[in-house]
């Protein structure tokens, strides 16, 4: 029995921090460099404050990262000019795997050859001193977006550089992003990150943590998104984080989007209060379609506009945007800013006041919540006495099973596909402990698929499901 508890908090991080910082290929900040630097920054660069002061506006955050400092800076200014409320700092894939060496080589070649040989900004190689310049004149919070199971050094440097929003978490940055990184280790490493963020928070200006409920963006059933989001929220709350956003990506079904948004908000508050954790200032982030994108620019823009409208309908605190270049490659700064403008245009005309619902959405919400509660109870009831160990065990035992995770320890026994109104439904639960009535509801959702009805999944329906927005 391992319930999340406030006294799971790591007491003294300093010895560990010294060891982590020693590995930095760029000049390492000392232990209180970040605190001092953050204290001198204006409120306008604090993500937690932007979120708190948003009123009824859904805030906008694009994605984007370039190898070289100057190019990244230009991108950031272009995005600001386009109306972005949060400015992204997306990290390259080598840094995400802690392969600073390859990143260094490609950064150097990018500089010498005057072209971009990395798919993101190698923050660890650039270092905190150089990167402090990024937020100068920005007057917007910078968000660290990566996909790194061991992000301890990366986050040390990010905080010292004045970055106030840290995305990720043990599950969401391991299961979609790594093949072999031990989840138990990832949990410990993210406890470090959470604790570090909490340590650098003040009551007025907390460092904001955000989960990445997108996961693999491919046929992940809403109930599993909810479980993963709740686990990361509770792990962060254990370490004293006081500003946190749960998130999810457009599912492809409006009813499921409405339902999942509602369940995430309600369940987050419920679990925290029931477990005596917090107070945490909670937010909801919506990622527009994260799966395979249409190549056609007009369709891509339509998809982006449609997602913006849904973000308005669910009253998301923030939407994370894509661009019309998504299917093709790293977007230009211009097209990235264009998408931001477009999303603002639609959002400004999509507020709904009261939350929308429907009989189907209500049913989906009810089922997601029942499933979530069942799985969380099963996780809490696992043998370990600490919550973090239970989370790791839940994954090992297949209670958490994410479709299309590249991770070699993922159970891969859960099978999902699209059903009613293109919603994602569970065909085979594997070892995920879902009650019978929930499974019956999932089966009903599958049976209502409009093209094939309740036939077993085939290769061609799988392709259609993955390419929902492409064809």
């Amino acid at each position: 029995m391992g319930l999340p508890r406030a006294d799971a908090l790591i007491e003294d991080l300093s010895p560990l921090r010294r060891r982590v910082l020693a590995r930095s290929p760029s000049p390492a900040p000392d232990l209180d460099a970040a605190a001092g630097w953050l204290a001198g920054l204006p409120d306008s660069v604090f993500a937690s404050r932007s979120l708190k002061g948003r009123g009824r506006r859904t805030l906008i955050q694009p994605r984007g990262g370039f190898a070289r400092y100057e190019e990244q800076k230009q991108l950031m200014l272009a995005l600001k000019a386009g109306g972005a409320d949060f400015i992204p700092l997306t990290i390259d894939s080598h840094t995400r795997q802690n392969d600073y060496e390859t990143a260094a080589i490609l950064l150097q070649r990018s500089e010498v050859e005057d072209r971009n040989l990395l798919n993101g900004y190698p923050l660890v190689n650039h270092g905190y001193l150089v990167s402090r310049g990024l937020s100068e004149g920005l007057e917007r919070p910078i968000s660290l977006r990566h996909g790194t199971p061991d992000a301890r050094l990366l986050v040390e440097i990010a905080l010292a550089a004045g970055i106030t929003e840290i995305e990720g978490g043990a599950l969401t940055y391991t299961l979609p992003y790594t093949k072999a990184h031990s989840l138990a280790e990832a949990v410990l490493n993210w406890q470090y990150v959470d604790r570090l963020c909490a340590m650098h928070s003040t009551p007025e200006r907390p460092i904001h943590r955000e989960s990445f409920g997108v996961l693999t963006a491919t046929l992940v059933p809403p109930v599993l998104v909810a479980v993963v989001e709740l686990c990361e929220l509770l792990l962060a709350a254990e370490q004293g984080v006081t500003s946190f956003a749960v998130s999810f990506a457009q599912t492809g079904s409006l009813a499921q989007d409405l339902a999942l948004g509602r369940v995430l908000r309600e369940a987050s508050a419920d679990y925290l209060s029931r477990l005596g954790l917090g107070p945490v200032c909670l937010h909801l982030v919506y990622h527009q379609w994260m799966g395979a994108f249409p190549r056609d620019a007009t369709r891509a823009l339509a998809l982006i506009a449609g997602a913006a409208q849904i973000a308005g309908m669910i009253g998301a605190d923030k939407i994370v945007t894509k661009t019309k270049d998504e299917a093709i490659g790293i977007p230009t700064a211009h097209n990235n800013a264009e998408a931001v403008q477009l999303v603002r245009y639609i959002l400004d005309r999509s507020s709904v006041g009261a939350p929308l619902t429907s009989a189907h959405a209500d049913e989906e919400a009810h089922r997601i919540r029942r499933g979530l509660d069942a799985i969380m109870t099963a996780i809490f009831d696992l043998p370990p006495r600490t919550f973090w160990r239970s989370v790791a065990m839940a994954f090992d035992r297949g209670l958490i099973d994410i479709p299309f995770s590249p991770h070699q320890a993922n159970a891969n026994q859960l099978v999902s596909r699209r059903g009613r109104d293109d919603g994602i439904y569970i065909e085979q639960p594997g070892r995920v402990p879902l009650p019978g009535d929930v499974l019956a509801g999932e089966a009903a959702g599958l049976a209502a698929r409009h093209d094939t009805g309740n036939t077993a999944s085939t290769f061609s329906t799988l392709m259609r499901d993955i390419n929902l927005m492409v064809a």
Partner: protein
Amino acid sequence: MTSGRNTIGTVVIGVIGNDIHVVANRILEMSLQSAGFEVLNLGTNVKPDEFADAALEVGAEAVLIGSLNGEAPHWCHGLKARFAARGLDHVKLYLGGNVVTGELPRDEVEAMFTRVGIDRVFYGTTDFDALTKTLRKDMDGTAAR
């Protein structure tokens, strides 16, 4: 993977570098298996030497390399040499996915990789049925050689 008898050939597949895009890799595995190939799927995050070692181990006639996140130009450089070093010059090297960033002319992209020893380049959306047919033909050629 066990080396079956009724297969028409053995291939190694995987996603190169620090790349974790696994969706196409899973689909490719299913397609090749249903077309009758014996498939060793190394999954994601596969480094050049691992491809070569695996090919040696299972006696693969072809290695199908996926790259989705833009790292292909980096990792394909010197790849052929690793195969040569193990006496695997005859193993066909296929590369597919988002092998470059942005939209470039197809022949330019193909030249870029054939220059470093890749035998066939599949740039962008690929019909896996057509792919298996090409593979089968290429393997007949290898077997005859």
